[in-house]
């Protein structure tokens, strides 16, 4: 049975090259080259594996990014996704989590009938961790979070949902929105052929209006969250260095006991 999966991917400034915060908008500067959020590469990989296992269907990417940025999308297309919907619009600057979810939900609908929507649990630059659930709510679909594995059985999906103690077995009817925990699969490297093929894969570039959304509902205008203040994180205090003169172990034990961890 063919399986069509939409994966939400975020394109972010390269974390290896730390970005700057804009003191005026209090948000991250995004006018640099953007790459695929590593957190999303797990979802892409899982989707590709599920489509493989189903023996048919395709993976469609959905992304929202400034300046028609496709760098990160191309990476995911090179991994094997078939096509993408990219929402890029000046009106989206300043969108909060809910605004983003509204856009993604519309873009997912535009991408076509999906059996499954996969997301990361949170982005590596924003960390709100709320978008997947908001998208599910807006689409009226079941939401399962923190999946460490996904299995499809007819019209049922079975998820092992990571918890602090172990995992829960969760089932839902398709379609559903599932957020995938980072590190649970090994994302494939784009192959040479994949990179070349990605150049000609379709990217449907749309605006807020194309999605039938009101510009006032998104961006700064629609944001109901406000960043009140940004401040530099305090540098950590230097640790204590203890010269071991044969009693070092005892001092470590005392230290841990003071912290009440032993």
């Amino acid at each position, binding site marked *: 049975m063919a399986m069509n999966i939409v994966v939400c991917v975020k394109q972010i400034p390269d974390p290896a090259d730390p970005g700057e915060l804009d003191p005026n908008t209090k948000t991250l500067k995004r006018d640099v080259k953007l790459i695929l959020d590593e957190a999303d590469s797990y979802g892409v990989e899982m989707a590709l594996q599920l489509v493989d296992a189903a023996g048919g269907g395709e993976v469609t990417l959905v992304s929202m990014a400034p300046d028609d940025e496709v760098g990160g999308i191309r990476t995911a297309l090179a991994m094997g996704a078939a096509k993408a919907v990219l929402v890029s619009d000046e009106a989206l600057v300043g969108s909060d989590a809910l605004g983003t979810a509204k856009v993604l939900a519309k873009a997912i609908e535009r991408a076509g009938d999906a059996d499954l929507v996969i997301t990361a649990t949170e982005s590596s630059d924003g960390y709100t961790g709320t978008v997947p659930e908001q998208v599910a709510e807006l689409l009226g679909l079941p939401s399962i979070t923190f999946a460490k594995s996904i299995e499809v059985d007819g019209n049922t999906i079975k998820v092992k949902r990571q918890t602090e103690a172990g995992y829960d077995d969760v089932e839902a009817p398709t379609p559903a929105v599932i957020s995938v925990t980072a590190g649970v699969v090994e994302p494939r*490297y*784009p*192959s*040479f*052929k994949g*990179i070349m093929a990605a*150049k000609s894969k379709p990217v449907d570039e749309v605006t807020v209006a194309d999605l039938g959304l009101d510009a006032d509902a998104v961006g700064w205008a629609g944001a109901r969250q406000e960043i009140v203040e940004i401040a530099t994180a305090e540098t950590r205090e230097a640790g204590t260095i203890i010269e071991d003169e044969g009693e070092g172990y005892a001092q470590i034990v005392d230290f841990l006991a003071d912290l009440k961890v032993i």
Partner: protein
Amino acid sequence: MSDYKAPIKDSLFALRMFGHLNDLAASEKYAQADPETVSTVLGEFGRFFEEVFGPVNAIGDTEGLKWSPEGVTTPAEFKPAYEKYVEAGWQGFGADTAYGGAGWPQGVYCLASEFMSGSNAALSMLPGLTVGAMELLEHWGSEEQKEKYLPRMVTGEWSGTMNLTEPQAGSDVGLSTTKADPQEDGSYLISGTKIFISFGDHDLTENIIHLVLARTPDAPPGTRGISLFLVPKFMVHDDGSLGERNDVDCVSIEHKMGIHASPTCVLSFGAQGGAVGYLVGEPNQGMRAMFTMMNNARLSVGTQGLSIAQASYQKAAIYSRERLQGRAIGSDSPGPVPIVQHPDVRRMLLTMRSQLEAMRNLVAHTAAALDMSQVTTGEESEGWTESLELLTPVVKSFCTELAVEITSLAVQVFGGMGYIEESGVSQLYRDARIAPIYEGTNGIQAMDLVGRKLGIRMGGAIADQFGRMHATLDEFRDAGSEFEASAQAFSSALDQLESTTAWIMEHGMADPRDALAGASPYLMIFGYTTGAWLMARQAMTARSDLEAGSDDAEYLEAKITSARFFCEQISPKVAGLVPAVTAGHEILYDIPEEQLTTF
């Protein structure tokens, strides 16, 4: 965990200056390799090797290889890394599209291969040698041979080796004695012993395709009687399935100074009566076939030198900012400072960095000549070929000589820690040391430069090269006072290169020994001057980028400083080399041989 970072930005900068990417993309042959796609491919290529080959580099060095009569076992971590390499399809980078390759420009591949060997020089020998074997087959194999062997070499499922050296036949390949006896079915039975066969046996691919130089019974002596044969480790049926084991065995592996994880094998052909081999190309044309891959192979080894040196520079630069020792001169601050603040450490780092950039520019320029010779026609194409032929021995020797110097400086920056294996730079110093030796020793390269390359088109090729350098010099002199000292230094180096070239061409005619005696220092003069030429272009490119308005000003300013340092402080080394070039050979022989061993 490896901390190697593929210098993608530097490579793209070098490609932009010297790679002729727009010209290549405008050709039918390389239309897919447009600059944007090159950038994407290099980015993914670099990430792959950082993340997959890099982390198993130190393991390969410490664990090394295991030999048994059944064959060579590589470290357990190598197999998954190599499998990922095959899955990603990188082996087909420059290979013929007719056999599943991507058919990309060889020169772009050459520059990209820095990332591969920089991440793990030993493991990279396997793909590198397979590329060489594929090239030979592409050029000289019959259609049937190509169809049978190439597709699975292009995927990386099978590897390839080059079998030239024998115990008595090293640089002098003409002394080889391995025999090939013709059989009634058209095949040959190969018997003999080959040594120093890199990846001659290993457990990373299902089959190994050996390309072997051997003599047929009626062959003339010397290099004119050498033929090229294909000898598979496992016989290959017509349907592509693997048959029985051929009569070729790895009888031992060498214990080496560096590249510990690259098996250097003694291969015995025909211990049980004869290994089945197939003639590639015409009989007695083996050396000619070898020459078709030699330019690429020599460029690759030069690039390998660059790559290992770059890896050592990265470690040294990072360490110099972490290691706290001594007070900063001229500062009242009582605390120890990172050693990077000390002038002598700064000098070491700039010496490394500026030479690395010159090396990368040289590789990019020469590799581009390889590609441009393919997409142009007539005189233009010949011009590129001449440029390639002229500069190939310089790339090989200059880059590998400097690799040893740079990796040694990296050890020095680490101080006592550098001599400790844990630092990682010790491995790089040992790994780099092979590069001046193999694929034609640097001495052989220097002989090639003075003996064959200077004479191309009766000296026309070198004259054209000097013309190009002078054009840049004129431009550099007009580029403002900022570059005055650099232009002066470049001019002085160029004068000395021209005068030593004239000396060699003149005296070499009268007594070739005079040319050969100074060949190696001459090659270094050639290298430093060519480096200054390319760094002058780098300085001017970076300056014009800055003037055009760039959001990467610090990077471009560093490029300019590096270029100036090379011109003003590295290229003057040529002056010290001139006397050795123009002294002639006599003093070398004034000491009798026996005095050399009188201790």
